[in-house]
Structures are given as structure tokens and as C-alpha cells.
């Protein structure tokens, strides 16, 4: 079973939603991180400030009396700072000062673990209302008393409020991202639908093309630049189709006409012959005349079959080396009697060898020579010029006589085409000879063209 591809709309919508989600998510994570960082910096600033304050106070401690006064000084320094805890430890790990809720993990206060500059730490402290998240730093500060070892000072802030804020911030952010992604999807769908509208127009236009309406063309100017090329390609295709179709139509009507004339002759002749009793000689005459007509019909059908096969690429030349000059001489020999009757003089110039089907090429050239004889006035001349070029050759058949008007030159190779319509009934050929010649030349990978000047007509072919 054939797998049907997803629609562009669905694919683009999903892609759009995915991209928006990814971008918003990254942005959200970044903003969250920045806010948290900001809180940390804020806390850090506050705590280092306090540490410095404590440090200055300690520096002023010169005597043990000053040391006793320290708690009062610290108490004063901390007024108004709700949620800030401070702990000062003496040299023998006795607590010199501690705020009411001051609680620190014991390893945090380990003298040896304290680094400079101070490292921030976060922990949970069990409080009256359940665990309280805290952020704190510790430092070792010396006093003004030189014999007294430095003291351990630790500061901590309650960050429950920040944590709470961050949690609700994240929740809002995720909700917003989800809504924005959904919205982006919907808007994307609308945008894609809108963006693809010109495709729909093209589709509808193409759908309205039928055999009888092949003249329809897509308006290239009204489609977006990206689609203009597609529209032009489609238009070109329509042009080619219309042209082929027209040729086909012409061809079948020509065919019907070409068949009707001889068949109508045959019918009339036979009916007249049968209308009364006649002598054997008269019957023989009718039959002989019919036989001639039948032969012409059979030849025409054979030619048409050949052309149909050529159109379908079924004519495959059986390649062998062909000496063109020898072929032309043989054709001159064949047509000699005919030419002599019309006092036409043949001439051949040059030579060339190609690889091709001898039988087919002989037929192609015979058609050209026969055509030339037909159109050369008595006393005229036919000249064949051959120019070999590498593996291929050019061959021109030139005859003196009436020039062919330019409008006929392009169509002269079409089936049943006759430059002179009055020649229609003279019984000379069915107008397929040149079409066959061209088919044969093309089957050999070459081409043929017709030129016409003042003094006559020239058919020139080239086979590589």
C-alpha cells in the first residue's frame, strides 16, 4: 500500500509549535536562572556587608572588656534586619554571640573548612514552622587583641521567601510556555493556510484544464516569487501539451480526410460498376483501378505505422558504416530515368561516412531526392553536397525552382503537410515522405532543416 505523506499544513504547524516551545522553554530557563542568580547576588551582598561590619567591630576590640561589649554592639548592628542570623564563635569553639534563630551545620563552622573568599552554602534548618531553607557564608576574622586567635563568624539569611517566589515564578512560566506553544501552533496553522493559499489557486487552475481547455495559463504575476517558477514550468508544460494536442488533432483530422478520399473513390467506382451488367474487360478495369487505390492506402498505412513507431522510440537503427556518397550515387541511378525525362541534371559533391542503418538512410535520402525531383522544373538541377566532419556528416540536397514561403518551411516536415494545397488530389504521395525522413534522421540522433532562397530549396541534414 502506498504511504500517503502528511499534509504540509500539519507538518508546518507541528514544526512551528515545536520551535516556539523550544525557544520559549530556553528563554524561560534562562530568565529563571537569571532571577535566581540575582537573589543569590543580593543575599551575598547583604551577608558580605554584614561580615565587613562585624569585621570592623572586631578590629575595634582591643581589650577583653571590649570583647564583653561585643554582643551589645552586634545586637545594635543587626537591628532592622529581619531573617538575618549571625553567629560568632570564640577561639575554643564557644559561642560568643548568636542571634535567636541562629543555626548552622557543624561542618560549616569548622575552622579548617572555611575558605577565603567565603563560599556560599545552602541548607535546611529545622524551625518552628517546619524546615527553613537558609543560605549562608562563614569567615575567620581576627580581633584587635593580637594574642587572641581569630574568631569564626557565620552569617545566614532565610531564603524561604525567595524559594517560594521562584516556585510560583516557574509554575507561571511553564503555564505561559504551554499556552504560548498552543497559541503558536494555532497561529502557525492559520499562517500556513494563508501562505499556501496560492498553491490552492494553482491547484484549482490546474484542475480546470481539460482537453478542450488547454489554452488555460496560470497567472505568473499574481503568485508569490517562490511559486512563479513552478507556475511558469506548469505553463510551459501546458504549452507543449497544447501544441502536441493540436498536432494530434490536426493529424487525426488529416488522417480521416486522407482516408476518406480514396475510400470514397473506391466506393463510388464499385457502386457505379455494380449498377448494371458490364463486360469482363470493364470489370477488370474497375478491379485494377481499385487495386491501385488499395495499394496507395496500404502504403499510407505502412508509412503511418512507421511514423507512430518512430514517435514511440521503437525505430532503432541497426548501425553499420554507411558511405553517403555511394548511397547517393545509387539513388541517382535509381531516379535516373525519371530525372532524364524531366531533363533534370544530378550532381554530387564531397563524401562522408557515418554509422547508421543503411536501409533507413536510403529511404530517408530517397524521399529527399524524390521530393526534389517533384519540385524541380524541367531543365533544372539537383545537387547533393556532403561534408564529412569527424565521425558525422552533413548532407544537403539542393534543387533549383520556386522558393518555399517561410511560413511553410517550419511545417514542411509535418505529416500530410503540403505547401501547395492544390496538389492534394494529384495523387503524388500522401505528404508523409518528409515526415518519415525526419523521423529516420532523428532516430539516428541527427536533425534536418529546410532553407529556401531565391534560386531554389535546400534540405540540410546532420548526423553525428
Amino acid at each position, binding site marked *: 500500500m502506498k504511504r500517503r505523506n502528511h499534509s504540509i499544513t500539519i507538518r508546518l504547524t507541528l514544526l512551528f509549535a515545536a520551535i516556539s516551545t523550544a525557544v520559549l522553554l530556553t528563554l524561560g530557563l534562562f530568565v529563571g536562572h537569571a532571577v535566581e542568580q540575582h537573589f543569590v547576588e543580593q543575599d551575598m551582598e547583604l551577608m558580605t556587608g554584614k561580615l565587613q561590619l562585624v569585621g570592623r567591630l572586631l578590629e575595634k576590640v582591643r581589650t577583653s572588656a571590649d570583647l564583653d561589649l561585643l554582643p551589645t554592639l552586634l545586637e545594635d548592628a543587626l537591628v532592622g534586619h529581619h531573617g538575618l542570623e549571625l553567629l560568632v564563635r570564640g577561639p575554643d569553639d564557644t559561642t560568643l554571640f548568636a542571634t535567636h534563630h541562629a543555626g548552622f551545620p557543624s561542618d560549616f563552622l569548622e575552622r579548617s573548612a572555611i575558605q577565603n573568599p567565603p563560599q556560599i552554602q545552602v541548607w535546611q534548618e529545622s524551625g518552628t514552622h517546619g524546615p527553613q531553607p537558609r543560605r549562608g557564608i562563614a569567615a575567620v576574622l581576627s580581633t584587635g587583641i593580637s594574642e587572641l586567635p581569630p574568631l569564626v563568624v557565620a552569617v545566614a539569611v532565610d531564603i524561604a521567601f525567595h524559594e517560594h517566589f521562584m516556585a510560583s515564578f516557574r509554575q507561571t512560566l511553564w503555564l505561559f510556555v504551554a499556552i504560548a506553544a498552543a497559541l503558536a501552533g494555532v497561529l502557525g496553522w492559520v499562517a500556513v493556510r494563508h501562505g499556501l493559499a496560492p498553491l490552492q489557486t494553482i491547484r484549482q487552475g490546474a484542475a480546470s484544464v481539460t482537453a478542450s481547455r488547454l489554452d488555460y495559463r496560470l497567472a505568473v504575476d499574481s503568485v508569490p516569487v517562490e511559486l512563479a517558477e513552478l507556475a511558469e514550468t506548469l505553463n510551459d508544460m501546458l504549452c507543449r501539451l497544447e501544441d502536441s494536442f493540436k498536432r494530434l488533432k490536426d493529424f487525426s483530422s488529416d488522417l480521416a480526410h486522407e482516408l476518406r478520399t480514396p475510400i470514397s473513390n473506391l466506393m463510388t467506382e464499385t457502386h457505379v460498376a455494380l449498377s448494371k451488367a458490364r463486360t469482363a474487360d470493364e470489370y477488370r478495369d474497375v478491379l*485494377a*483501378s481499385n*487495386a491501385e487505390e488499395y495499394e496507395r492506402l496500404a502504403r499510407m498505412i505502412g508509412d503511418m505505422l512507421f511514423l507512430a*513507431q518512430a514517435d514511440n522510440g521503437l525505430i532503432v537503427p541497426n548501425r553499420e558504416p554507411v558511405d553517403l556518397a555511394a548511397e547517393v550515387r545509387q539513388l541517382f541511378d535509381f*531516379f535516373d530515368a525519371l530525372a532524364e525525362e524531366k531533363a533534370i541534371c544530378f550532381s554530387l559533391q564531397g563524401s562522408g561516412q557515418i554509422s547508421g542503418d543503411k536501409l533507413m538512410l536510403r529511404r530517408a535520402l*530517397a524521399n529527399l531526392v*524524390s521530393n526534389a525531383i517533384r519540385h524541380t522544373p524541367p531543365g533544372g538541377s539537383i545537387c547533393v553536397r556532403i561534408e564529412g566532419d569527424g565521425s558525422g556528416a552533413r548532407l544537403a540536397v539542393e534543387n533549383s525552382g520556386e522558393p518555399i514561403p517561410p511560413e511553410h518551411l517550419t511545417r514542411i516536415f509535418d505529416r500530410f503537410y503540403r505547401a501547395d494545397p492544390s496538389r492534394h488530389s494529384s495523387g503524388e504521395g500522401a505528404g508523409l515522405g518528409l515526415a518519415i525522413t525526419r523521423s529516420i534522421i532523428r532516430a539516428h540522433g541527427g536533425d534536418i532543416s529546410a532553407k529556401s532562397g531565391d534560386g531554389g530549396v535546400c534540405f540540410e541534414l546532420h548526423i553525428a
Partner: protein
Amino acid sequence: MKILVVEDEPKTGDYLKQGLTEAGFVVDLARDGLDGLHLGETGEYDLAILDVMLPKLDGWRIFEGLRRAGREMPVLFLSARDQVEDRVKGLELGADDYLVKPFAFAELLARVRTLLRRGSRSKEAEHLHAADLELDLLRRRVTRGGHRIDLTAKEFALLELLLRRRGEVLPRSLIASQIWDMNFDSDTNVIDVAIRRLRAKVDDSFEPKLIRTVRGMGYVLEDSAE
């Protein structure tokens, strides 16, 4: 001479039988491939004419069957399909000749006679003659009633062909193919002109007239007095 015709189209079959019988042959007609092969295997024929498209067994298969049975008579194929592969197949199989329908009966008759002659070519005659016309093949001279007639090489060849096959109607296509090697149907009247010129030299000032036009068929050389 006995000919086997295998043709399923009733009218074509009947006319082939009638035409060939009237031309002096003994004809057996089979309407389908199996009958045809059976007749060919059991009877003695000098020639077989086989249609390619046949019910039960096609022409190619009959041909193969005949050759397998050791029947070596020449075979002429009739084909309605002028297709390249048919042609190639025909030649590869070693068919002796073939004709594409529609064909002229005179053409068929001429080909049949050529095929029948092929096997039994008697000693080449050095002289050919009809009435008082004489053709000396060795010296390439033509005389009529003792008068020397000058002919071109092609005219000589044409007269030789007509004389060799005197009494046979030769279609234009056969003449074009035998004398000029033009193996395609051409709608020109080249042959008519050539014959007219030959007649002017051979017949015009002599009696009886030997070369006769058979309307709708071709040309024949015969001595009406014989």
C-alpha cells in the same frame, strides 16, 4: 509444387488458397496453429506460408516444431505487426522471408516463386529468349529479330529479370528491390518510367509486344503467341 498455408482469418485464407491454386500450386489450408503443425509434420510440402498471430499455436512455434520434426522446407511469414522485435525474431529464427500485411498478392506470388526456385537452382542459362528477343548473358548483348539493341546496364538487368521470370507478374516493389536494391515502398513512378524506356527500345518498333502492364499489379513479359 505443394504449399501449406496456415491462416486463421477466413477471407485471407480463402483468397490465398484460391490465388495460389490458380497460379498452379497445390494448396492445403489450416485455420489454426495446431492443425497447421500437424499438417506440416505429416505432409510433404515444398513451402509453408505461416501467419504469425494464430489461435492455439503461433507462427513462430509452428516454425520451431517443423524444424524439430526435420522439415526443412522454406517458410514465409505473414505478419500484421510491423514490429522490430518481430523482424529480429524472424531473422534469428532463420525464417526465409516475411511479408507485412497488407501486402500485394503479386508480391506474395513473386516471393513464393523466388523461395521455391532457391532450393533448386538449375544450371544458369547463357541465353534467354522470348519470341524473337534474345539476351546473351555472357556478352551482355540484346538482339531482337536480328537487330542489335543498345541497353544501359540497368535496362539490361531489368530485361534479364523480366525474361528470367517470364509469365510472372512482377510488382513494382519487387523490381525496385531486385534491380536497384530499394527495399521500401516508394510512391514514385520510377519503375513505370524505366519500363517505358525499356519498352521504347525493345517493343516499340517490333511485333509482338512482349512487356505487358497488368493494371494494379505490375509488369509481365510474355509471348502472347505461345
